């Protein structure tokens, strides 16, 4: 029933906004009313001049709108006055005719007015409903956005917590490795503490990107900073490369071991010693890193492989799915690392 009523109003909307149809309906309603009035004239008792005109006016006012309704009412009034109010076939005007016409004007006036009020009310309701619909949609959109934000925040928090635990696990490994390779607990504690500081400095190089990656040059400069006395002992050169967090931490640990070693036995021990650090990325996904000491005392190959050399020779290359080579030359140590920048991507590539 509600749908039928709404259909009627939709129909009326369509008619009202098309002048040709609106005026056509006004004329048709008038013509039908006149024809029907003539048709039933002989069966109607006297005193019903407007009988068929009222429905015509109401229908026109409802379907075609205010102006066609009013014009139709005027035409109907004139037709009724001329043909159906005695004396028939003339526009005579006496008191009784005047009263009858006045009644007609009142009745159709009230009809048209009520229909207009009803249309306005329905239009208002429809606008209201559209507005609430918009509001509901807007609210749903905002709610969706908020949920997305919350979800993203939860993911980020989980990711950060995961990174934190991974870093703590690395710290635990560094401590246990430092203890494992040194019988003197005091010495081991010192080594562990220096390595943890190296990890902490690498974290600083990572902060610019939410701890997800670091620029190699920033990483290298931060890693050698405690060993740099500001007299140009380090020559650092390489392209701008982004290194994923775990690989950054690994490389920072390797640089720390190399620098500590150079300070104790290598190029940084003498006044003239220089360390050249170079890196590049052949083919876009390759990674080459070299640490070349010169001007230092000749370094002999150590007899015992400690955590430091296991780290530089086996562990850190594994971060890059590559290999490393250490040479002990007259001018100092030469360390070369070769691997891939993003090994996980090559893992996923089809064979």
């Amino acid at each position, binding site marked *: 029933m509600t749908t039928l009523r709404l259909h009627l109003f939709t129909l009326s909307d369509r008619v009202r906004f098309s002048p040709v149809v609106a005026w056509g309906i006004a004329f048709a309603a008038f013509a039908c009313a006149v024809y029907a009035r003539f048709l039933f004239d002989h069966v109607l008792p006297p005193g019903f001049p407007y009988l068929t005109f009222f429905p015509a006016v109401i229908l026109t006012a409802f379907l075609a709108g205010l102006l066609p309704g009013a014009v139709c009412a005027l035409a109907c009034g004139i037709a009724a006055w001329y043909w159906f109010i005695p004396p028939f076939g003339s526009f005579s005007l006496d008191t009784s005719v005047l009263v009858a016409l006045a009644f007609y004007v009142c009745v159709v006036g009230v009809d048209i007015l009520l229909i207009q009020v009803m249309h306005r009310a329905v239009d208002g309701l429809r606008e209201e409903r559209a507005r609430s619909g918009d509001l509901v949609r807007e609210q749903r959109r905002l709610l969706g956005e908020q949920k997305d934000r919350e979800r993203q925040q939860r993911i980020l928090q*989980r990711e950060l917590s995961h990174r934190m*635990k991974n870093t703590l*696990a690395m710290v635990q490994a560094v401590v246990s*490795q430092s203890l*494992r390779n040194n019988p003197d607990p005091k010495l081991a504690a010192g080594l562990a503490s220096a390595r943890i500081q190296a990890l902490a400095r690498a974290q600083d190089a990572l902060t610019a990107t939410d701890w997800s990656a670091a620029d190699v040059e920033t990483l290298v400069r931060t890693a050698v900073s405690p060993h740099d006395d500001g007299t140009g002992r380090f020559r650092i050169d390489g392209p701008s490369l982004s290194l994923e967090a775990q690989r950054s931490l*690994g490389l920072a640990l390797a640089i720390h071991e190399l620098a500590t070693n150079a300070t104790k036995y290598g190029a940084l021990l003498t006044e003239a010693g220089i360390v050249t650090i170079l890196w590049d990325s052949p083919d876009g996904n390759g990674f080459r890193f070299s640490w070349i000491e010169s001007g230092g005392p000749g370094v002999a190959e150590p007899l015992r492989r400690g955590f430091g050399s296991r780290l530089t020779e086996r*562990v*850190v290359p594994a971060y890059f799915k590559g290999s490393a080579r250490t040479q002990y030359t007259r001018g100092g140590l030469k360390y070369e690392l070769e691997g891939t920048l993003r090994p996980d991507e090559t*893992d996923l590539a089809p064979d």
Partner: protein
Amino acid sequence: MGQSYDRRRIAVLVVEDEPLLLMDAMDMVEDAGFTVYGAGNADEAIRLMEKHHDICVLFTDVDMPGSMDGLKLAHAVRDRWPPVSIIIASGHVNVAHETLPENGLFFSKPYPPVSVVKALDGIAERIMQ
């Protein structure tokens, strides 16, 4: 409890994508007297499982890149080598218990090495009985 059995006959496969953690975990298992194999991802782990029939324990990290994470690997090993004991470690504490394979042990990272070694001892004793 004493060592009435030769731990070297028990081999442990450690799977961890983080090279430093892999080395440290392998050292921990080796220091405890067991034979140890290490893998950096699940595919490598499966290859080692196929090759070394002395592997009795799989000790794997959950979060790993590649075709299989640690949980999938654990289930694959449980299906193909049912007698192999499984120990799982993860930095995510919320690894649901029901996602672990049956009788699988879980350690939250960073894990206490003593507890892991104790768990390995327990497994070794069960196997040797």
